């Protein structure tokens, strides 16, 4: 994807706030905003105008049964303990210090990662099955669920690590924001301030699942950063998802 210039941004911003861009164009606008945050207020202002359209349709009352169905799900989920949400700012600052770490032998890793990914995908399928089985058998108390916060969560993504009792864990991200084609989400398990590469997110639509390849026992935190395709040896950006363990 080619980086967007100011002229293209100005050309597309109205269609952007109306939701009238292709996924690729939308990602380009969002990438532009990420590096030109001074334009965000302008987009927020335009979005405010566009969002008024949501109130224009003739009104209809939703059926009462719909409320019952929605509340049934919500009440069942509220009964489960939620992982405590906490401020991620300390992690941003802490991990920010790692930004300048050189990519080192990333190129050498690519070959290994390609073959490793095949195994990883099999692991993901296997682990997903295990997670489902555990849930079906009401064995939730024997697994640990960890909800991740961070900028992706603020954008509406839902990310949860399910740690299985045999020290394996899987990360599932739903509604993840789109990423440029040459970038990938990389999982890090952080122990004594050392982030260990622990999996790559391979999105399927707006969802991704990956096995976490580093044990979580005694780890301090888990995080996801956006890295060049194929992953990095060390994080090169601030986390988009993070949770202290």
């Amino acid at each position, binding site marked *: 994807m080619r980086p967007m210039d100011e002229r293209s941004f100005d*050309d*597309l911003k*109205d*269609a952007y*706030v*109306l*939701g*009238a*861009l*292709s996924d690729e*164009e939308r990602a380009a606008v969002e990438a532009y905003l990420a590096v030109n945050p001074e334009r965000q207020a302008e987009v*927020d202002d*335009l*979005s*405010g*105008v*566009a*969002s*008024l*359209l*949501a*109130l*224009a*349709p*003739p*009104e*209809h*009352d*939703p*059926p009462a049964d*719909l*409320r019952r*169905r*929605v*509340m049934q*799900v*919500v*009440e069942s*989920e*509220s009964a489960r303990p*939620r992982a405590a*949400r906490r401020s991620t700012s300390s992690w941003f600052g802490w991990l920010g210090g790692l930004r300048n770490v050189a990519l080192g032998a990333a190129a050498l890793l690519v070959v290994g990662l390609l073959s490793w990914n095949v195994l990883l995908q099999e692991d993901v399928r296997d682990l997903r099955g295990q997670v489902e089985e555990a849930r079906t058998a009401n064995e939730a108390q024997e697994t640990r669920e960890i909800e991740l*916060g961070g900028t992706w*969560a*603020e*954008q*509406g993504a*839902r990310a949860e690590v399910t740690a299985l009792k045999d020290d394996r864990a899987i990360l599932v991200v739903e*509604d993840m924001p789109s990423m440029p084609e040459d970038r990938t989400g990389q999982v890090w398990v952080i122990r004594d301030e050392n982030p260990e590469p622990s999996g790559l997110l391979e999105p399927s639509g707006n969802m991704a699942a990956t096995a976490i390849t580093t044990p979580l026992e005694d780890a301090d935190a888990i995080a996801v950063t956006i890295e060049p395709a194929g992953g990095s040896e060390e994080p090169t950006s601030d986390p988009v998802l993070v949770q202290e363990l």
Partner: protein
Amino acid sequence: MGKNRQYAILADEDLMSLMEGGDAEAFAALYDRHSRAAYSLCYRMMGDRQAAEDLTQDAFLKVWRSAGGYRSERGSVRTWILSIAHNRGIDQLRSMASRRRTQDRVEQSAPRSQPSEAFAETWRNRQREQIREALDTLPPEQLKILELAYFSGYTHVEISSLLDLPLGTVKGRMRLALKKIRSYFDQENVAVPR
């Protein structure tokens, strides 16, 4: 005062804080407050009752699960909820194997206020009226493009092809339409509702 009554007088932002902590009753209060607007939007986008119900359910569950993602500086809770419904609706419209968005929807008329609803009692309904009035000031060709984009989920390129218009014209009409809606509120000396 009973808990339900307490929730009824809490501001949306306070309910969001409670919801973030897993409070289902706070969610229920928000649902009761905003489900009509959300369902109406979903119905307008999807065009039939069942699909509108499914989309509304999907959107509210997303609201429940993403309560921590709300940022008050970006707009009101209502705007946030409706934007979730809108974004999910666009995703669904675009992923339909066989799009129901046919040419006859291009000819569909602009949303109009219903006489029985005019100048309704609540402030929310007054806002709705203002928005509809603002839309009434748009030339039909601009309104049509807004509708195709916002309610039917077409991209600007698709609209250009559908209406056989140059892409620049489509973009220009989008820009002018949004500008004109803002001008309406400026002229009325009313802030754009958030």
